[in-house]
């Protein structure tokens, strides 16, 4: 068995395009903790208010995203932020900075994705298999 090869058996070109790194953080990020990564970031935990996640790629939070997040930090407008519960104090994608609306729209209790659509940061519910921009 040849264990040296890393190319998956069946793949699409877009799966391996870009060759970005992805890091897995398996803990909750607490207030005051800042995480910067050149690539995609997956947090298996919460991001508490006062914590910051900055990534050049996508950010996926498998928990409650309550802190500050910046995806596409070097200008990639196709970057996305996804969380089981998206409740950030501030959300940034590339050069766009947004904050939650002032009028209290009750937050969703389902996974949501933030991405730039038509030049504006929009948040919609996450639908499996349909996050291609």
């Amino acid at each position: 068995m040849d264990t040296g090869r890393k190319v998956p058996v069946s793949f699409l070109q877009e799966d391996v395009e870009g060759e970005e790194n992805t890091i897995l953080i398996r803990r909750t990020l607490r207030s005051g903790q800042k995480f910067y990564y050149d690539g995609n970031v997956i947090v298996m935990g919460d991001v508490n208010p006062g914590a910051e996640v900055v990534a050049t790629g996508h950010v996926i939070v498998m928990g409650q995203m309550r802190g500050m997040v910046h995806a596409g930090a070097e200008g990639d407008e196709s970057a996305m932020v996804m969380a089981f519960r998206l409740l950030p104090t501030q959300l940034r994608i590339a050069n766009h900075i947004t904050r939650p609306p002032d009028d209290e729209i009750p937050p969703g209790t389902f996974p949501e994705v933030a991405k730039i659509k038509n030049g504006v940061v929009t948040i919609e519910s996450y639908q499996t298999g349909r996050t291609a921009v």
Partner: protein
Amino acid sequence: MGEVIVVTSGKGGVGKTTTTANLGTGLAQLGMKVALVDADIGLRNLDVVLGLENRIVYDITDVTGGHCRLRQALIKDKRYEGLFLLPAAQTKDKTSVNPDQMKELCADLRQEFDYVIIDCPAGIEQGFKNAIAGADRAVVVTTPEVSAVRDADRIVGLLEAAELRDPKLIVNRVRYKMVKAGDMMSIEDIIDILAIDLLGVVPEDEMVVITTNRGEAVVCDDHSRSGQAYRNIVRRITGQQVPLLSMEEDGLMSRIRRMIGFK
């Protein structure tokens, strides 16, 4: 060999000193030998809260600076067998002591006492770093307010980074009426963010102000709910399982309700 517990919070004014005084007094009442260490150098308060300020001759900076022996600086509380205080200095500041000196001090105290409880100052700088240096365990105190919980979360992160794993939580100054009305954060809201084990909940109580001004610990008062809460926390520290106090206010109506059998 004893245990060194640091009582910390991040935010000021949430009840670290009160908690330290009450935990120490409560453990001494159970027959333990307890040393309370005031690590808030420059803004000392633990001596005032315990009513021992008139008896201070030497303080922690004298011990770490080698001007006196540890035994000379420790003040024995005459009311409770086994309770001792190592006071802070009022005329210096937090740069007068460094973490290595604190580690050594805690190692010495650990030899003689069952429990060493360190009153940490507010903040995350030198004072905090000194206070946690020699500790085995940490207790994080917070009040049910957004700002206090935010600071407590920062502190938990710093404790984890300093390898003080599994800190315990005390939620102080809870007003059950406000929690029920949805005006105050609930214990569940707080644990949802902090994600650490709950050691106890202390209700807001005027008796704390009254006893503090008299230099007494509220844990000695049989009639106050905060005293009862602290007594329960003390028993949990020694390993006993104690259920949390009920959320009902101790008014006449609730007492009647309880007698008749309503919840």
